[in-house]
């Protein structure tokens, strides 16, 4: 559907994207994760022919970029960074022009996409008067205008308030549910977790991890145990999961490597007469750390092989 093969971009001495191989299948809501500066936007720019790869190519359906950009772009909608419009024209006028470029600027379709993003009422105001959130919505509207098979969204929730973020995420989920393939770049792990089925994490222009979203993050195995009898609890738990899997986080014992054995763990604690105040999954805290850990270890790799 959408793939990159050995995609590489070098700016002078800086290697922004380094032999990137991605493969997005039809119907995927594909998360493209990475910290800021990881090469996400550079990759997207190459995917739509705004910049030219130093090496490698992009494939959209049967079309290869940069050579077959024109055919490829008929099937792709989206935006790169902050969507930009003609500020002295209204949202509707902008959509009309962009629709005409893609072959369909009909009022009916324009109204449809305006409804999808909830911007119909403000469609006849000048884009220059739009808020950031409205601008993002118009960005999504223009991405959908020509009913593309692939929609590429570059950090669509960037700079939005919580409600705006929620709306956009729901929209992306709905697109996926309707069968549109979505390529969603983000630097927020939990966003990708909420809306995507598959994802890849990149850093320094290279893939760090890829796969189904459920396999991206560490096993949901860590739990936090709150007890007043930490010393004994440590012994007991250590006997079950191994002492190296136990750490202290403020007043909680963080127990790793539980692998779904929480009931057994609780039973053992109770049998040993240890009073447990609370057991909570340590997952929320683990994710961002995990993400950071992954991208930092990629830094270490990169530092080890300066030739790359």
């Amino acid at each position, binding site marked *: 559907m959408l793939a990159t093969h050995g995609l590489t971009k070098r700016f002078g001495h800086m290697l922004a994207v380094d032999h990137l191989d991605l493969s997005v299948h039809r119907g995927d809501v594909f998360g493209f994760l990475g910290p800021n500066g990881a090469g996400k936007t550079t990759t997207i720019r190459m995917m*739509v022919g705004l910049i030219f790869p130093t090496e490698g190519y992009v494939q959209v359906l049967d079309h290869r970029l940069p050579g077959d950009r*024109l055919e490829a772009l008929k099937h*792709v909608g989206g935006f790169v960074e902050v969507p930009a*419009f*003609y500020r002295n024209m209204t949202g509707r006028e902008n959509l009309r*022009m962009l629709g005409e470029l893609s072959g369909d600027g009909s009022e009916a379709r324009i109204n449809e996409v305006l409804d999808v993003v909830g911007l119909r009422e403000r469609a006849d105001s000048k884009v220059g008067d739009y808020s950031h959130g409205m601008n993002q919505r118009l960005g999504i509207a223009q991405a959908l205008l020509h009913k593309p098979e692939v929609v590429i969204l570059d950090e669509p929730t960037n700079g939005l308030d919580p409600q705006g973020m929620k709306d956009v995420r729901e929209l992306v989920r709905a697109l996926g549910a309707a069968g549109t393939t979505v390529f969603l770049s983000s630097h927020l792990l939990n966003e990708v977790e909420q809306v995507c089925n598959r994802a890849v994490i990149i850093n320094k222009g290279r893939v760090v991890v890829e796969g189904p979203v459920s396999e991206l993050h560490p096993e949901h195995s860590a739990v936090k145990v709150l007890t007043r009898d930490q010393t004994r609890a440590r012994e007991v738990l250590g006997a079950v999961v191994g002492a190296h899997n136990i750490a202290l986080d403020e007043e909680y014992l963080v127990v790793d490597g539980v692998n779904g054995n929480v009931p057994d763990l609780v039973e053992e604690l109770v049998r040993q007469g240890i009073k447990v105040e609370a057991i909570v999954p340590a997952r929320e805290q683990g994710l961002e750390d995990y993400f950071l850990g992954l991208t930092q270890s990629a830094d270490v790799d990169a530092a080890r092989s300066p030739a790359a």
Partner: protein
Amino acid sequence: MKLLKLEFKKLINQKRTFVGWAGIAAVPIIMVVALALQSHKPQGGQGPDRFFSLAAVNGMYVAIAAIAMLTTFLLPLLASMAGSSPIAGEAEQATLKTWLFRPVTRGGVLMSKWVTAVIYMAIALGLVAAAAYIAGAIAFGLHAPALLSGGSVSLAHGFWLTFLAYLFVLAGVICVLSLATLLSTIANSSLTATIGALVIVIVLNVLGNFSFFDVLKPYLFTSRLDAWQNLFSSPIDWTPITHGLISFAITSAVLTVGAWLTFRRKDVLV
């Protein structure tokens, strides 16, 4: 065609389009007011000055005196702006990436912008002529124009010669515009491209004023911008005019092809 239509739509949605047109069309009007009110009428003179003295008594000559005056600065300035804003201006607003996200060829985008800029300049010149004739007719009346070489031609023939002169100036101005377009595919700032083009035009003008650089002169399009003045002699010496047109055509073609070569492989990063 579709691209051209959309470019034109964008053009007329910008305030500065009309500011440019209004500004340049004001020049012949100001000229007429000054000529009508000042007690000391210009007499005789060479080149552009000669046109002023003729314009002071015959409204037919206002349009001619106006382009003689405008080709020195204001027309090149307007052409530099018109040529540079379509690419670099859109790059500045980041709308270039929105435009190029659509299935349109880069060559088509560049050409539609170039043609739109040419149309913009043609309309500007048309407005100058219209303002000149209206103001000139009111102030001095339209009479059969006298020729620089003596004698005169009919009113209709006078219009025709003026029209040809305007076409010639338009062809010359397209060189400036193409230069600005080329620079705008290299620089990402439209101001840089505008000023760059203008500076180059001024430098070429300066070079043309020194006999030391006479070897260069045949290749400088700027030295040929006044060749239309030969139209107002009898018999008309066509050689400088055709040479001028050939020079303009080659210059514009080279610059525009250069712009295309740059733009088709340009990394659009903004």
